[in-house]
């Protein structure tokens, strides 16, 4: 076939391409020839433009069912080699290779769907059980996929997420253990720029995310923000709604998120407006950016303030720029395109050590933590990345797959169970010439139809449950209904589920031998129900395992919650001292607060009682092993601290104004244990050049993770080093009144800021939020798994009851009691559940034991958890099965025996 040269006067090229694409191969030559001949005629009659137009139009008309079907058939034929090849010169009247293959013949497929629809309609009960179960499974899979997607694309909002990294510090702590944290010293930024400038596109120092008091006119709000260098917003590729992304180059400017801008300025244009922060300095709004979405690590930061201003305005920050041992800052970098992060880490790891003294400051190394790891691989163990949330992602992926599998198993079970009813249909179809493949595709298309309906329901369920799921998982997800990709995945997913769920029945049913089936001698063999039983066992094993896992997660949370805390959390209020106005009025404020009559006591300290912000090394004592350099959590408090939080003094005395406590310290039990000293009260501990006298010992207090052992902590009195004010309220006073009175006092001393407080019991409860969330999610999924499994059981039980209807009728006529019939029907299922219980016990023991190893303060795997789950499963099964079996047992035998 000679190709026409590309001729501007010739037929349009695209039309030819379309033709060769869509026309059945064997027809292309004659059809294209005809069109070209016609084109040549038209060229003479109406000129090239019209002729080309006509040609294109004719080519487009190839898109019609007849050609498409032949084209598809041809493709299918070519792929399957279904029919022998024939010579193409003369064609016989019936040309099998050119007509549709029966496997994809549209008429047959239409027929399959019609039969499938009739079957669904005829057995409404089974159909709804199948569809409901499948829909629940698919909805769960959908929600979990959404959750996983959200986790996997965490921080992908930042366009440079592949090249951004945070500089972390790995420190050698007590006894050679390595700990990694995000704190670095402030000169690091300039040092990296100076020495490795060619490797980094951007380097920015930053503060922690902290609360700031913002005031614009009369409006005062609290918002979290970060001090960052001018290039930081462009590193994060913030989406600027107004103003300039490089606005922070001017040290008296500020970038606000849209939400903060709206709450401060309403609808007015915020650009170039002036606002005051912490009653310290004024800033001009240089830009407004779209709030960082919920699935970004830095989404809490609602404003960015220039680093330059921080350094010039805050004295201790200015001072820190000269020192490498004050590690209170963060450093973010953007690597150049060609730079490998592992190699770069090796290059820079000793940058800070070059300025430190190993003997007095301890050994440390810098590590680059890429942004892609921030969320999922955030935990370090001994200086190496040791997982993190990725474990939950894997866990939920497994759960999702299992729940979907359970739903598919239901489907398989119900359809194979009902196969006997359809065996006649299979027999007839085979007898009139159905091929096995045709039957397979019939049952597959039936499964596909069910999966399709279930998918629609699943979409509805997912949409309805999503708000609840978002609360449970602390996310803001939506179904991306507008995305083509989502639909492609969903359709693929539905077809996949349909194939998975339909494969077993399809191959099982199509294997029937028509002769035996039609003769009526077909009986399901003794072992025909074996696969079905195995599937039920799998279903219940998974469900019981999930239930046991959930109970243990809750038990662990409860165990940690019941741990003796060592202080009183009730009606204890904390106010973080974010503005300078709050400092230096301790006694005056205290007496004003006590004068309100609602306050029991008030104190200040350097770390909130729910965490330890500072730990120090350099303590020594009599008998200390000089080779070790243990670190102690160090908390500075005022003398009233103990009485305010109600710590429990074990030995010695509390701090008191009656003594000069400037050199006194109080240790917690863990600290006493670490020193190894007996009768410690009155002994001396040296810190640098100071002699500190131990005046008391308090019971351990859970200040950090409730799952970890208590940090050895030293309390000392240093009124100049405080960050938090505590107010303990008198019992039995209505909260709103009391808070109103407190607010008045705080407004007096801190006029620039709103009265912003937290309750310690709430803050303490926060420590459980991660585990609580996992517990809730696991409970959610376990409940669904049990629900799906029970649905399946319900279907099977009703099937068995119906199948044995006659038998039951006969038994009753011959005098069987309701109980014995019930026993007959229920026994088999109970046996299966007991069996699966035996499977799930070791399985869940193994997994939950592993999980508990993550916690140092952990609950035990009590036998009653397993027993309880087993009995619970048995009860639910009994209830489900009894519903059907009792119905069958009390039915009037006349009804079942009358026919025939």
């Amino acid at each position, binding site marked *: 076939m000679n190709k026409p040269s590309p001729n501007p006067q010739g037929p349009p090229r695209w039309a030819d391409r379309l033709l060769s694409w869509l026309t059945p191969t064997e027809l292309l030559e004659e059809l294209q020839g005809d069109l070209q*001949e*016609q084109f040549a005629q038209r060229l003479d009659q109406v000129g090239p433009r019209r002729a080309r137009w006509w040609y294109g139009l004719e080519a487009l008309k190839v898109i019609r069912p007849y050609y498409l079907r032949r084209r598809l058939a041809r493709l299918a034929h070519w792929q399957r080699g279904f029919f022998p090849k024939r010579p193409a010169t003369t064609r016989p*009247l019936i040309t099998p290779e050119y007509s549709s293959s029966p496997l994809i013949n549209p008429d047959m497929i239409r027929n399959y769907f019609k039969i499938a629809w009739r079957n669904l309609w005829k057995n409404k009960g089974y159909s709804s059980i199948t569809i409901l179960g499948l829909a629940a499974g698919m909805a769960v899979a959908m929600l979990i996929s959404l959750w996983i997607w959200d986790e996997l694309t965490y921080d992908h909002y930042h366009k440079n997420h592949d090249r951004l990294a945070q500089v972390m510090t790995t420190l050698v702590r007590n006894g050679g253990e390595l700990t990694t944290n995000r704190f670095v010293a402030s000169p690091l930024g300039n040092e990296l720029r100076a020495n490795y400038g060619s490797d980094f596109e951007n380097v920015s120092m930053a503060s922690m995310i902290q609360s700031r008091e913002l005031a614009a006119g009369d409006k005062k709000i609290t918002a979290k923000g970060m001090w960052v260098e001018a290039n930081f917003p462009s590193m994060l590729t913030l989406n600027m709604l107004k103003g300039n992304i490089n606005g922070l180059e001017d040290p008296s400017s500020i970038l606000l998120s849209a939400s903060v801008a709206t709450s401060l300025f309403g609808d007015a244009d915020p650009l170039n407006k002036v606002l005051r922060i912490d009653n310290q300095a004024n800033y001009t709004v240089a830009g407004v950016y779209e709030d960082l979405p919920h699935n970004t690590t830095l989404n809490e930061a609602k404003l960015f303030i220039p680093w330059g201003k921080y350094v010039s305005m805050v004295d201790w920050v200015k001072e820190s720029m000269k020192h490498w041992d004050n590690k209170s800052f963060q450093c973010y970098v953007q690597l150049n395109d060609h730079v490998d992060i592992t190699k770069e880490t090796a290059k820079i790891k000793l940058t800070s050590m070059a300025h430190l003294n190993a003997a007095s400051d301890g050994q440390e190394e810098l590590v680059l933590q890429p942004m892609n790891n921030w969320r999922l691989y955030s935990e370090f163990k001994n200086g190496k990345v040791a997982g993190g949330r990725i474990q939950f992602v894997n866990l939920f992926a497994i759960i999702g797959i299992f729940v979907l599998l359970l739903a598919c198993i239901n489907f398989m079970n119900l359809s194979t169970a009902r196969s006997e009813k359809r065996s006649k249909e299979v027999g007839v179809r085979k007898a009139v010439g159905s091929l096995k493949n045709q039957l397979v595709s019939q049952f597959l298309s039936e499964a596909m139809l069910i999966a399709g309906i279930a998918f629609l329901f699943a979409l509805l369920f997912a949409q309805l449950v999503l708000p609840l799921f978002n609360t449970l998982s602390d996310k803001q997800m939506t179904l991306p209904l507008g995305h083509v990709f989502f639909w492609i995945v969903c359709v693929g997913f539905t077809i996949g589920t349909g194939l998975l769920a339909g494969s077993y029945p399809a191959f099982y049913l199509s294997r029937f031998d028509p002769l035996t089936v039609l003769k009526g001698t077909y009986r399901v063999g003794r072992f025909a129900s074996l696969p079905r039983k195995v599937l039920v066992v799998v279903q219940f094993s998974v469900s019981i395992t999930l239930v046991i896992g959930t109970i243990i997660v809750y038990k662990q949370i409860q165990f940690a919650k019941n741990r003796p805390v060592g202080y009183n959390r009730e009606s204890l209020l904390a106010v973080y001292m974010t503005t300078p106005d709050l400092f230096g009025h301790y006694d005056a404020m205290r007496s004003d607060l006590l004068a309100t009559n609602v306050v029991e006591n008030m104190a200040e300290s350097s770390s909130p009682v729910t965490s330890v912000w500072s730990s120090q090394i350099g303590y020594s004592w009599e008998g200390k092993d000089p080779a070790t350099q243990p670190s102690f959590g160090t908390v500075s408090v005022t003398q009233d601290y103990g009485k305010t939080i109600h710590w429990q003094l074990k030995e010695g005395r509390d701090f008191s104004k009656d003594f000069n406590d400037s050199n006194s310290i109080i240790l917690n039990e863990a600290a006493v244990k670490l020193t190894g000293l007996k009768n410690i009260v009155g002994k001396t501990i040296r810190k640098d050049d100071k002699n500190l006298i131990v005046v008391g010992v308090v019971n351990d207090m859970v200040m950090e993770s409730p799952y970890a052992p208590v940090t050895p902590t030293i309390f000392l009195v240093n009124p100049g080093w405080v960050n938090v004010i505590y107010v303990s309220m008198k019992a039995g006073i209505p909260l709103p009144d009391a808070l109103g009175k407190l607010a008045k006092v705080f407004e007096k001393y801190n006029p620039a800021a709103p009265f912003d407080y937290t309750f310690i019991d709430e803050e303490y409860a926060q420590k459980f939020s991660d585990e609580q969330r996992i517990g809730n999610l696991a409970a959610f999924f376990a409940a669904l798994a049990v629900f799906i499994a029970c649905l399946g059981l319900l279907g099977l039980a009703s099937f068995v009851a119906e199948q044995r209807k006659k038998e039951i009728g006969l038994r009753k006529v011959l005098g069987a009691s309701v109980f014995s019939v019930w026993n007959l029907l229920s026994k088999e299922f109970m046996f299966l559940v007991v069996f699966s219980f035996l499977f799930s016990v070791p399985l869940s023991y193994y997994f939950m034991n592993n999980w508990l190893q993550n916690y140092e303060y952990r609950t035990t795997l009590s036998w009653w958890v397993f027993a309880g789950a087993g009995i619970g499963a048995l009860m639910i099964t009994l209830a489900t099965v009894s519903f059907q079996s009792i119905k069958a047992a009390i039915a009037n035998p006349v009804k079942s025996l009358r026919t025939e």
Partner: protein
Amino acid sequence: MSRTYLGEFEELVLLAVALLEQQPTGAYGVSIADELKQRTQRTTSVTGVHVVLYRLEEKGLVGSVLGGATLARGGRRKRLFTLTADGHQVLREMRQLRMGFWEALPTPFFS
């Protein structure tokens, strides 16, 4: 359903095949489309005519051979259709059917 059931367009195409296979051009897509256009004054698409021809062939009313490549066709062969005995039979039956109706009508109906 009768094997010989034909739609109006199918009947016209079949008639065109009967007419053109006697002539030197032969009956193939373009000539049939031209003939129909000339006689019915409606635009007929070649691809549409082909579909009908293939259907007629599947029904066994026409047969075909390949041949007659020309330069205007870019060297491509054409499929030349001929009436089969069945095709003749069907046309004859159709004509008789219509004639029967016309004869039954009273003469002054159309004159």
